[in-house]
């Protein structure tokens, strides 16, 4: 039987990034995915590397580092991953949000972000189709985007070339701890042995944690998205509404009636390289039902056509939903597990997993190799949940 340096559990963007960076350090890796590559959140999400939306602190620090890695990834992976920096704007159409957004922008500037508030005239210069009664907007130059599917594909291709073994469509039935290694058993009676295990099972990490008797407090934060037909650009920058930031950082301040609140809607609007616009999204906690609902579709449509009336004549061609892996405090878990040598966890990235994938993979490869992580990870340790 082959013994691997590492078994990575979960073939989403986080598991694939960990795999890639471990292989680059010369480790042998077996990636285990119970369904298909990208069958979780990573195959059903938006495409944004948002700096503006990150809470000042470690999240922002990780995002800035990750963006740097994304810049060089197309060359390292020798593939086009749809990386672009178009900048972003958070539209403000409610007077009550102005103070909050001013504060927010000031804090973000402290971290060296190039971001400011622009007035209505400026807003309409950049985005001429936005509604008349817009009040103001933030404007950041660094917000970027990437095509998550292409990132997945590029990681799979490069990792396969470096010898990744892909174990797909099998369920793990048991994980046994031996003196200095682990045995992972599958439902088809096969098994693999490994020195290290890295759990990257997204919104299902809690279940996997049970197999090794570790509490990984992560649940699903479902998001529904609409896709339009291909259109010429309405403007360069990708768009959010200040409700997005408010519902992400301060859900209790969110406005609207109770269905609206329950769906946790914060509007985001970005154009893919192919010209389709993605309109998102809901934030529904603890929901694992992949269907999209008429209610959510109607509210998202109403919101976006309110901001951009011109879209009323545009077709929605597809809708989909994904499950963001949400940790108990909303921050990622990038951690070794104390007392269980060779066990690691990388999940809980919520709505930022695409943005944070490269840095997460890199940090995890350092942890597994016993190196000092290039960003201190105490705040992201699984120990913080007690």
């Amino acid at each position, binding site marked *: 039987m082959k013994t691997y340096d590492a078994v990575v559990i979960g073939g989403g963007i986080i598991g694939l990034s960990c795999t890639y960076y471990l292989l680059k350090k010369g480790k042998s890796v077996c990636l285990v995915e119970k369904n*298909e590559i990208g069958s979780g959140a990573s195959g059903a999400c938006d495409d944004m590397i948002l700096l503006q939306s990150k809470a000042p602190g470690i999240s922002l620090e990780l995002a800035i580092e990750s963006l740097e890695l994304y810049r060089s990834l197309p060359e390292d992976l020798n593939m086009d991953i749809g990386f672009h920096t178009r900048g972003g704007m958070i539209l403000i159409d409610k007077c009550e949000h102005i103070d909050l957004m001013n504060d927010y922008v000031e804090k973000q500037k402290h971290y060296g972000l190039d971001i400011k508030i622009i007035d209505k005239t400026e807003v309409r210069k950049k985005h001429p189709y936005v509604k008349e009664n817009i009040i103001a907007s933030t404007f950041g130059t660094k917000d970027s985007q990437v095509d998550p599917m292409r990132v*997945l594909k590029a990681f799979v291709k490069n990792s396969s070339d470096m010898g990744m073994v892909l174990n797909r469509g099998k369920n793990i039935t048991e994980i046994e701890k031996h003196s200095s290694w682990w045995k992972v058993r599958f439902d088809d009676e096969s098994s693999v042995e490994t020195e290290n295990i890295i759990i990257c099972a997204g919104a299902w990490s809690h279940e996997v944690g049970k197999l090794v008797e570790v509490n990984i407090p992560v649940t699903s934060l479902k998001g529904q998205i609409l896709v339009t037909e291909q259109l010429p650009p309405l403007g360069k920058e990708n768009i959010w509404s200040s409700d997005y930031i408010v519902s992400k950082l301060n859900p209790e301040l969110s406005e609207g009636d109770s269905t609206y609140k329950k769906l946790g809607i914060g509007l985001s609007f970005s154009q893919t390289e192919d010209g389709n616009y993605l309109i998102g999204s809901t934030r529904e906690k603890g929901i694992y039902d992949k*269907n999209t609902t008429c209610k959510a579709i109607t509210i998202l449509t109403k919101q976006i056509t309110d901001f951009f009336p011109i879209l009323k004549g545009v077709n929605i061609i*597809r809708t989909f939903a994904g499950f963001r892996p949400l940790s108990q405090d909303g921050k990622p878990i990038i951690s070794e597990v104390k007392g269980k040598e060779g066990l690691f966890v990388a999940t809980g990235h919520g709505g930022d997993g695409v943005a944070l994938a490269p840095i997460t993979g890199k940090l995890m490869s350092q942890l597994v190799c016993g190196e000092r992580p290039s960003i201190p990870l105490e705040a992201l340790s699984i120990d913080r949940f007690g």
Partner: protein
Amino acid sequence: MSKIICRCEEITEDEIIEAISNGARSVTEIKKFTRAGMGLCQGRTCRKSIERILARETGRKVEDIGISSYRKPVRPTKMGSMK
């Protein structure tokens, strides 16, 4: 030039075969890797051909490939008409 399989997204047979050699093993993975099936008709035109290519390239039967899902809205819908 290789035959176009997905007309909406202009994806050729070669691109689909390349996706399979890069690791795609299902219609959904091919869709994610190439965009084949994600166009205006949402795969109504090309899905069957993709299944056949996948079966051929991986030495499986078309029946064993598994069906890929349709999502709402089943036909393109104007945003102004949603109430």
